[in-house]
């Protein structure tokens, strides 16, 4: 019996030792940024960069970046501000997944990260949840002119009259066409349908048109483009739900006509950006809708069958004109950051002309500062940035509804629109359901 007790306690002891060893293991990496005293946030004058400032480390979280852009911009920042060290934290590339990671982290009021990249659809939600710092005070103090930025990108980060994020790089839906098959892109959706029917099969293609119609966030960007091109809106500037309109119904009808036509792949309902890109660079289609990044993959000798045969244009127009959905990323500061002043310094740098130029040149990201498109170095990155049409697309890009409950709005729209495309309901029903459900969600 004595022996058994001994054995038992020794086993427990072993287990305990395991715990302790591992705890020690972690402690070293875990506390990187705690002890610095809170020199920051005293606001105002003393923010001038001085060499005697205490060194601080801030943590910058962002989605996976396969380009050298982020590293380069951090390096440039650290050279300019030697007392601030920037550590990177990678988040999943998937927008939804990284959103959920940030929610877990920020809702526990963790100060682990200081600065993070936010999708254009997050600012209102994160502002309302009190996760991020309002930047107006900083913007005013440092005299940053928000009018230098594309209006859509600023509007997307503005909620309740305050600015919650700085635009970092932008994205907008664009239209691709094969120059070896057509000379001129279609001007309207009807022309697109006509031309796709006619041209599919030519030049080794199988399909006329590619777009994103799976049930996910990308469906909303595609739908918004249709709706806006017919003059419809989901939520107006006074925060009223106005989605149930003849314009929306007409737009959804057109979208359905295209999705159910035989010039798109049969599995278009499973298409996201990745599927679009794969089919496109295989040379399978005449036209496609995607984000600007597909230009460089189209010209990638390693993978693409259609090098030098691709050009981009604005999306086809509806009754009201053409519209491109706004994408891209913002930079925000964690409300519970222990170094807001240093964090702001970093945000200011990467969203300013200097930082944006580096991310454009090294990472191929589209700047949000209109003036940068005149810079010859930026223009040299790709024909896209030199293309005046592209700047125009960005200038007029339409943001998705700015609402603190955007995820819920998006979820409702995804389901209702998806049901139209699968033929489970009519466009009228969808418009009515969206109206009712979004109104109910907002009223709750």
């Amino acid at each position, binding site marked *: 019996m004595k*022996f058994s007790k001994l054995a038992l306690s020794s086993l427990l002891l072993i287990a305990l030792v395991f715990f302790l060893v*591992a705890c020690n293991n972690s402690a070293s990496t*875990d506390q990187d940024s705690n002890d610095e005293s809170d020199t920051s946030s005293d606001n105002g004058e003393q923010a001038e960069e001085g060499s005697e400032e205490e060194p601080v480390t801030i943590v910058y979280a962002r989605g996976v970046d396969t380009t050298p852009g982020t590293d380069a911009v951090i390096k440039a920042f650290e050279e300019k501000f030697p007392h601030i060290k920037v550590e990177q934290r990678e988040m999943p590339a998937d927008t939804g997944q990284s959103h959920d990671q940030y929610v877990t*982290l920020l809702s526990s009021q963790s100060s682990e990260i200081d600065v993070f990249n936010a999708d254009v659809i997050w600012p209102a939600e994160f502002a309302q949840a009190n996760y991020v710092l309002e930047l107006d005070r900083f913007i005013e103090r440092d005299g940053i002119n928000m009018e230098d930025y594309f209006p859509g990108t600023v509007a997307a980060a503005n909620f309740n009259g305050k600015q919650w994020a700085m635009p970092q790089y932008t994205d907008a839906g664009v239209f691709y066409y094969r120059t070896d098959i057509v000379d001129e892109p279609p001007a309207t959706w009807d022309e697109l349908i006509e031309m796709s029917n006619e041209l599919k099969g030519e030049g080794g293609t199988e399909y006329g048109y590619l777009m994103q119609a799976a049930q996910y966030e990308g469906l909303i960007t595609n739908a918004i483009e249709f709706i806006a091109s017919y003059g419809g809106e989901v939520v107006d500037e006074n925060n009223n739900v106005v989605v149930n309109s003849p314009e929306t119904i007409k737009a959804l009808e057109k979208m359905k006509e295209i999705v159910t036509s035989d010039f798109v792949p049969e599995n278009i309902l499973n298409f996201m950006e990745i599927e679009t890109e794969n089919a496109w660079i295989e040379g399978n289609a005449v036209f496609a809708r995607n984000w600007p990044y597909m230009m460089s993959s189209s010209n990638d000798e390693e993978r693409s*069958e259609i090098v030098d045969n691709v050009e981009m244009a604005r999306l086809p127009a509806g009754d009201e004109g053409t519209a491109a959905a706004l994408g891209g990323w913002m930079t925000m500061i964690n409300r519970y950051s222990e170094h807001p002043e240093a964090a702001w310094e970093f945000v200011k740098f990467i969203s300013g002309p200097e930082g944006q130029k580096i991310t454009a040149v090294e990472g191929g990201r589209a700047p949000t500062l209109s003036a940068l498109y005149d810079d010859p170095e930026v223009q040299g990155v790709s024909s896209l940035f030199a293309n005046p049409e592209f700047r125009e697309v960005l200038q007029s890009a339409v943001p998705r509804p700015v609402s603190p409950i955007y995820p819920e709005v998006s979820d409702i729209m995804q389901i209702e629109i998806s049901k139209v495309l699968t033929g489970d309901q009519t466009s009228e029903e969808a418009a009515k359901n969206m109206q009712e459900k979004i109104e109910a969600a907002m009223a709750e």
Partner: protein
Amino acid sequence: MNKRGGIEFYLFLIIFVFLVMFPFIWVFLTSIKPPREIFSSFSWFTSNPTLASYEAALTNRPLVRYMINSFVVSSLTTILALVFASFTAYAVTRLPIKGKGLILGLVLAASMFPQIAIISPMFSLVTGLGLRNSYMGLVIPYITISLPLAIWILATFFKKIPFELEESAKLDGASPFQTFRKIILPLAAPGIFTTGILVFIAAWNEYLFALTINSDDLWRTVPVGISMYQSQYSIPWGDISAATVIVTIPIVILVLFFQKRIVSGLTSGSVKE
């Protein structure tokens, strides 16, 4: 039962294994194709196989580090979970304690709640303990979620061991703990090794907790690491296939090594009723 099968048996076996393995075989074949062939054809073999994907998989991300992390986390989880679970299972099946049903029920209740719903509290708990980005930060949750299964399986095993053996050990003057160690554990070896494999692989596979708790690249485990190969709009299939093949091999070796123990124990041991 010990007959050797004929040709038909082996033929059947080969077809069966092929079907089971097909997705994995396809992943392997994909991993040695050059990138532009991956989506363009259904042909099985590429004319110019390349190891470029393997090189990319190992250099683009610290895959070896992920494997070490996963290996340490899963091993610690397995050892500790087996210790805790075999204690509990032994006490519940062989010792005269009260509330056995309640204990087993409580333990089972722990695996009834959707794991996604305890991520937030778990995150706060681990943060509170200062265990973010460490091995223990994952081991503690993993042990806990694998305990129910481990305890229940071991309990069914311990239950099957004849009481006569224990009684005779007792008559020889062995203490209950000695009985447990010298009689029960060796006899239940197949159960323990089976449970070990199950717990190990479950810990190796876990994704959500690992993603949330260890956010620093140095501490990431294999499933999270592999998902990090993709960027916002592209999935590099070549790299991911290569990485999947690389991380699966050690598991296969491990199972090959341990599966011998699964079939020893009871059948080969001294127990014949």
